[in-house]
């Protein structure tokens, strides 16, 4: 810190500098406040499809690793030094303190650099940021999860959570749609979800290939496959904006109250801390007030969909 | 020994623009030696017609990327004289400083990047980064200094932004000027190191008597304006530039040729030195003497040395100028003016020699006629005849084709030709 001295010529003054010490933030707030991230190693890279990969990140410092706690639905800012940051949903179980999983689609510069990175590469993460799915509030009720494409990334955390506390929820149903069968990610986990977590999984694709035996069409077609008790059901919807518009509309008609439907929004983000204003929707920030919003708020947010 | 060979160099490298050398030797005798400029013409004199006087210097600046300040100031000088605009003294001094900046950028660029590899036998200056790091460093420091002077005085080092009709649109701050002064002082060591280094190089022995033309102002070393003089005793007023150029077209070049009293004449650092050695500061004089350079020197290879001598001169001049500027009020550096009809010439000493812009305006201040004569144009004929003489000398001395070729390209580069500029 620089010192500031006020020297008044002709007068012999020795005043204390007014520059104050910067208070220790780390003590005041539990969350990280500076630009400094947790250094993490990419310990494993799992190819999921041509454009999507799962990265396993391990925070290098054991203490920091312990400190990193998040809730399902939250995201982090993933920094690839030299290339920049991108907001990425955390795709692993909240109880997994060893690794953080992120599922990434190659979209631009940061994500492309990540795709070139090798196992062992060092990246940095800031976070967790944002709101989460109300896992406690949903207890004692049925949960309907509707996922389109890469929307599965933020959905894995709640899935893991439910798997760990399966007895607290009634019926749990996952509707999962994609363009092509190859874009249904994590198919290796389908069995686990169905058998171990007792999740009723329904999949559908728009463009089937020869080996596809399942449902064909848009995800809304799956709604005829089951009955639902609107008063007793919570819905979580993740996917492209156009999808959740249709889905939520449909669920609204089926009688699920708007404040029991949750969606995860995506916007351009630069800081993750509600400062840069890049992610504002209406008068809220996707990073602070979101990314998880209930549908009532989304309806009331200007330009949300 | 009867030899036959042809040297055909298309698009000579390490010069600005496109020029070709053609030498043909038959039966051990020189059959032909020619210098041809094949640059694509840009027709500046035609496109400037109808342009507002205010904008014209910005356009003519684009004649050359290396000496854009000279072009800008030549146009400004011509137009100010034509329209009787009087720029404030502070502005005139800042322009002068800008000129020094340009020379101090252009000379090191030529000496280190374009010429030095010839003397050291490398294809470019890039290997010197490893073999002569301290010299490259000195070169970069000097060139950087030149660029910085240009940026501070004119807003940017290439294509100046604040040199305008009537003065300077934004004067540098005193802090910037004081900072420049320190930087100049700090660069003296680099220049001395460079000078010592150049003393170790062998300058080819070649002499062809010619007429050297340059400006000669009322006082000081030539830069902006003055009488047009030659080593053959010619003296003309600035406006009579045509008598000093006598442009003519040749078949082989898109650039014109010029002459004064003889078949060719030369402009540039050596010409300025030959005509104005008496105006040099003692330090520059000593440096010249240490290279055995004295007026009138007829060895074109010595142009490199003359550039070095000028660097010494300009660093000193720049410091003196900054001292004057620091004592002046720099708030009002731009005079208001009204358009009017007129015609005048603006002559400046660009790094490569005298540059003329002649401008005629109408009542609305639009340019109706323009003529620009570029230093390299004034050197074309001299290069051409020098090549001839040099090739003959080389044959006499029994040099090989490769040696001859090397001498010829080194000769052309010694002129530091600015070819795209000569075809404007």
């Amino acid at each position, binding site marked *: 810190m620089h010192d500031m001295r006020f020297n008044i010529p002709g007068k012999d003054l020795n005043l204390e500098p007014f520059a104050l010490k910067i208070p220790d933030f780390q003590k005041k707030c539990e969350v990280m406040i500076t630009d400094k991230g947790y250094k993490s190693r990419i310990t494993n890279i799992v190819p999921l499809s041509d454009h999507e990969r799962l990265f396993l990140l391990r925070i290098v410092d054991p203490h920091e690793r312990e400190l990193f706690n998040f809730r399902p639905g939250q995201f982090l800012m993933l920094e690839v030094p030299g290339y920049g940051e991108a907001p990425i949903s955390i795709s692993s179980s909240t109880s997994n303190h060893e690794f953080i999983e992120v599922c990434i689609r190659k979209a631009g510069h940061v994500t492309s650099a990540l795709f070139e990175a*090798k196992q062992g590469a060092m990246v940095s993460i800031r976070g967790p940021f944002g709101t989460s799915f109300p896992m406690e509030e949903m207890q004692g009720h049925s949960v309907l999860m509707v996922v389109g494409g890469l929307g599965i990334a933020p959905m894995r955390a709640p899935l893991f959570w439910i798997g760990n506390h399966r007895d607290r929820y009634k019926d749990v149903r996952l509707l999962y749609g994609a363009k092509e069968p190859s874009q249904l990610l994590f198919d290796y986990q389908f069995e686990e979800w169905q058998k171990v977590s007792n999740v009723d999984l329904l999949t559908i694709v728009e463009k089937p290939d020869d080996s596809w035996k399942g449902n064909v069409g848009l995800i809304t077609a799956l709604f005829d496959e089951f009955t639902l008790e609107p008063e007793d059901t919570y819905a979580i919807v993740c996917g492209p904006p156009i999808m959740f518009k249709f889905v939520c509309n449909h669920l609204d008609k089926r009688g699920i109250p708007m404040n029991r439907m949750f969606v995860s929004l995506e916007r351009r983000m630069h800081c993750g801390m509600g400062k840069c204003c890049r992610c504002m929707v209406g008068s809220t920030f996707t990073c602070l007030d979101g990314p998880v919003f209930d549908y009532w708020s989304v309806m009331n947010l200007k330009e949300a969909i | 020994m009867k030899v036959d060979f042809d040297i055909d160099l298309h698009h000579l490298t*390490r010069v600005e623009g496109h020029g070709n050398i053609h030498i043909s030797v038959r039966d051990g005798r020189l059959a032909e030696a020619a210098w041809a400029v094949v640059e694509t*013409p840009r*027709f500046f004199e*035609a496109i400037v017609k109808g342009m507002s006087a205010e*904008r014209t210097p910005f356009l003519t600046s684009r*004649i050359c990327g290396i000496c854009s300040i000279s072009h800008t100031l030549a146009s400004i000088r011509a137009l100010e004289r034509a329209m009787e605009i009087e720029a404030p003294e502070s502005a005139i001094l800042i322009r002068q400083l800008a000129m020094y900046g340009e020379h101090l950028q252009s000379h090191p660029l030529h000496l280190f990047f374009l010429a030095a590899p010839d003397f050291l036998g490398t*294809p470019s200056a*890039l290997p010197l980064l490893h073999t002569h790091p301290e010299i490259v460093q000195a070169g970069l420091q000097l060139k950087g200094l030149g660029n910085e002077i240009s940026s501070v005085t004119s807003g940017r080092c290439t294509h100046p*932004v604040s040199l305008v009709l009537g003065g300077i649109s934004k004067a540098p701050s005193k802090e910037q000027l004081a900072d420049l002064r320190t930087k100049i002082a700090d660069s003296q060591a680099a220049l001395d190191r460079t000078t010592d280094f150049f003393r170790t190089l062998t300058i080819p022995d070649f002499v062809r008597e010619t007429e050297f033309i340059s400006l000669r102002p009322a006082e000081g070393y030539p830069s902006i304006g003055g009488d047009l003089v030659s080593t053959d005793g010619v003296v003309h007023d600035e406006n009579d530039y045509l008598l000093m150029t006598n442009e003519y077209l040749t078949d082989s070049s898109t650039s014109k040729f010029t002459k004064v009293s003889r078949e060719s004449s030369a402009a540039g650092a050596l010409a300025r030195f030959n005509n104005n050695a008496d105006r040099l500061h003692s330090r520059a004089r000593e440096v010249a003497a240490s290279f055995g350079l004295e007026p009138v020197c007829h060895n074109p290879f010595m142009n490199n040395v003359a550039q070095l001598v000028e660097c010494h001169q300009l660093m000193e001049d720049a410091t003196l100028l900054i001292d004057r500027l620091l004592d002046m009020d720099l708030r009002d550096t731009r005079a208001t003016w009204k358009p009017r009809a007129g015609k005048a010439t603006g002559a400046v000493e660009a790094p490569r020699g005298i540059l003329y812009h002649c401008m005629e305006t109408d009542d609305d201040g639009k340019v109706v006629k323009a003529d620009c004569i570029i230093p390299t144009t004034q050197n074309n004929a001299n290069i051409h005849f020098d090549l001839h003489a040099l090739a003959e000398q080389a044959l006499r001395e029994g040099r090989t084709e490769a040696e001859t070729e090397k001498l010829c390209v080194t000769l052309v580069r010694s002129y530091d030709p600015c070819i795209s500029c000569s075809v404007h």
Partner: protein
Amino acid sequence: MNHLGFKLDKVKVGSFDFTCCEGCQLQLANKESTLPEFLGLIDIRNFREISSERHDDYDIALVEGSITRSDEIERLKAIRAQAKVLVAFGTCACFGGVNSLKNRIPQEEAIREVYDGKKIETMPSMKISDIVEVDLSIPGCPVSKDEVERIMVGIVTRSAVSLPKYPVCVECKQKLNTCLFDLGEICLGPITRAGCDAVCPTGKTACLGCRGPAEDINFPSFEELVLDRKLSISDMKEKLGFYNGFGDYLDHES
């Protein structure tokens, strides 16, 4: 840089000039403070202005200047055939530059004016993209070395290479300049692509639009502004026409 587990190679660069002042190429040798590092990024394979060594195995071609003679078309096509990335380097290459002013007058007249009617081959000036496909444009008269450095680093590291989409005013305001419109002058800053750090308005001269139009500009509003302030339309046109970057807007008049 191997914290990500991969190495970056130097890129092989060729620099070529056509009809122009060579000021943009010269910028490659400017900014002396970082020149050694800059040269560390690239492997110069072909650059007549500074090196006698010429190889034709470059990947990136920096092409400076506009096209005004038929032999230049062939040379340019050959460069395109070799280069993986062809960069239009500077305003002349991107838009035609000041050379395009000649297109307003009949070619014979221009030749008569300058060469007394001697036979000289020339044709209306064209920008590079009129002839070959351009992968990347770096506008500027001259180009800004900072931007060139940034883009070269971007190419070498395969990270972001893009130009600002917003206009010069943003940078100008950040320099705390007085707006030239307030001083009674027309400035093309509001419609010209930023990236030059507003050098011209900072030197208190109008932006002449050397970097061409910014993304999605509001030209009608700009014209309105000039009319509103009772500034000269002919002055506006002279400025818009200076570098040929605004040809599309000059043509359909309001």
